């Protein structure tokens, strides 16, 4: 900055964070600490609700990175939730591996599955890609329904000896004076918190990196990005495989917590894709803040309206249509435009200095997201 201040001519610099986002970073750290310590005070119901909120948010961030940035609109992410769940069951029930170790292994294996899957579905583009991923998820479901050691079409349950073999349970029981099932929830809660924090950090770091610039360029205009030298295929492949790994880990955690798996539930397009899309779209696609807001709204709707069954889903479908038609940037898009807020500073702003007094004026920003919308 000294160079710029010394010269009276126009100088510029690139800025990402502003005061709002710096405050947000402080608040996020405090919230994270509070959440880590929460099991000491909170009841079991709240812990279970938060586990649900966390894994839905982690899945939503993954889908947002895929669809909102890389332009890969997948309707088949349930493939990797189910795969992760089944891998956890296979590793613990058949392989005798410790459940907490099985979660990262499930992530690695999901990535290994995602690579050949991508080579096939990447032959389809745009909307055709969407249905292609759905077909692949169906193939995964039908194959696991044939896998007899894990119960075939009807599925199977984790044995109590496995669910209570999660490391740390004894320690939590002694520390917080709770019974085994509650201690198990607390461990799952911490894992879920770690996964959601890890996902947020990963998405944030990716978007702040060079590759993030490429992703933003692809989001805004794919052909233009390609002409500027972005290797579209490679960037998309990396994003697809990385989100598959994270989705697989979240899937493994979900089914460790549920302790019962069946092909229809594990590969459910409604639970693991429709809800996730709803969260991202309501909150605001192509932003990191959007899925957070969307997940909280979804959690509240699920909690207070899910008893209405079919009408609840009709309401949700209608809401998604209305938002897409009239506010395609979602709630966060509306708020951030109105108040110029960023909590996760991933946008780069061009700041032009006109004099040497050191005063800076934000003058130009990134072009608006979703130029066509």
């Amino acid at each position: 900055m000294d160079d710029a201040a010394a010269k009276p001519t126009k100088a510029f610099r690139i800025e990402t964070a502003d005061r709002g986002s710096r405050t947000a970073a402080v608040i996020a750290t405090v919230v994270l600490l509070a959440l880590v310590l929460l099991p000491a005070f909170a009841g079991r119901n709240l812990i279970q609700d938060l586990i649900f909120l966390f894994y839905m948010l982690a899945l939503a961030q993954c889908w947002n990175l895929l669809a909102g940035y890389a332009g890969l609109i997948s309707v088949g992410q349930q493939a990797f939730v189910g795969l992760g769940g089944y891998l956890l069951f296979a590793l613990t029930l058949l392989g005798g591996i410790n459940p907490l170790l099985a979660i990262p292994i499930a992530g690695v294996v999901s990535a290994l599955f995602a690579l050949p899957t991508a080579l096939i579905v990447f032959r389809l583009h745009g909307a055709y890609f969407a249905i292609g991923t759905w077909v692949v998820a169906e193939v995964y479901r039908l194959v696991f329904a044939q896998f007899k050691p894990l119960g075939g079409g009807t599925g199977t349950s984790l044995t109590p000896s496995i669910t209570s073999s999660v490391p740390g349970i004894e320690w939590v029981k002694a520390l917080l004076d709770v019974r085994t099932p509650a201690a198990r929830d607390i461990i799952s809660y911490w894992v879920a918190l770690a996964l959601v924090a890890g996902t947020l950090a990963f998405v944030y770091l990716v978007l702040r990196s060079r590759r993030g610039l490429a992703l933003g360029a692809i989001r805004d205009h794919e052909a233009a990005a390609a002409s500027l030298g972005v290797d579209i295929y490679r960037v998309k492949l990396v994003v697809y495989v990385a989100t598959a790994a994270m989705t697989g880990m979240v899937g493994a955690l979900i089914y460790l917590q549920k302790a019962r798996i069946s092909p229809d539930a594990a590969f459910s397009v409604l639970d693991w894709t429709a809800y996730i899309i709803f969260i991202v779209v309501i909150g605001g696609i192509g932003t990191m803040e959007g899925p957070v807001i969307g997940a909280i709204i979804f959690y509240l709707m699920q909690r207070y309206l899910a008893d209405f069954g079919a009408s609840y889903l009709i309401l949700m479908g209608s809401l998604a249509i209305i938002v897409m038609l009239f506010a395609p940037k979602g709630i966060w898009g509306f708020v951030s435009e109105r108040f110029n807020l960023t909590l996760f500073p991933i946008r780069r702003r061009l700041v032009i200095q006109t004099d040497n007094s050191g005063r800076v004026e934000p003058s130009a920003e990134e072009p608006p997201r979703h130029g066509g919308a």
Partner: protein
Amino acid sequence: MTGWLDALIQGVLLGGLYALFAAGLSLIFGVMRLVNLAHGDLIVLAAFAVLVVAGKLGLDPFVAVLIALPIVFIIGFGLQYVLLNRTLGRDLLPPLLVTFGLSIIIQNGLLQIFSADSQRLHSGAIETASIPLGGGIAVGVVPVLTLLSAIVVIVLLNVIFYRTSIGRAFRATSDDLEVAQLMGIDHRRIFATAMGLAFVAITIAALYLGLRATFDPTIGPARLLYAFEAVIIGGIGSFWGTLAGGIVLGLAQTIGARIDPEWQILAGHLAFLVVLVLRPRGLFPRAQD
């Protein structure tokens, strides 16, 4: 041998049903590149509509469908004109999400009204009638009618697409939307007309869906996948390709089922993926595009 020959014949006939599922989807892919994720649910919705009309008026399903065709054309036209046209543009997400939302609304609306019970369309003796072909092989009258109807629908779509003025407008908007607009084509009406025609095909597909097997509100998405696979296997933009794609899918499913009944659906999906790997543009891709 007879068993395998039978499987082949039944596969081709089943392919007729899948071609009917796919005909409407193929038309709207071709004209406006819209991927309608509610397509399967619309087929199921139409089947329920035929069920109600036939039941309430005491009509044979075939007659009920004939009466329904102009009405569904108007519904399809209206849906495209009022709702789906708003979603079309450079961004892919709005049409996908709006039709995905529609899919969820239709499924749950049907569940609300008709419950999850399996339903079936009834048309008297024709349902169970069959034609013996000798050698212990017989084909059902309804499956044969399905295949013949699929061929008729494909021929009609080709005639409309390549021999009429509306078809010329379809091809023009499909090839270059902006230039077509400059030539005075109102693309919104053209798209709405295409959707109206797709709804006619959907309703015919629904008739045979209901006559051949039971249906319930949840089976829509699977029908969407079959229709989509038939279109992609055949090659986007070719109606005859769609018919061929449907037959390839039907054959894969019956051959898979012949090996192990549990593999029927999986075999169809795998055939689709194999075609995607070997011939990503389908068996009969249109020259341009």
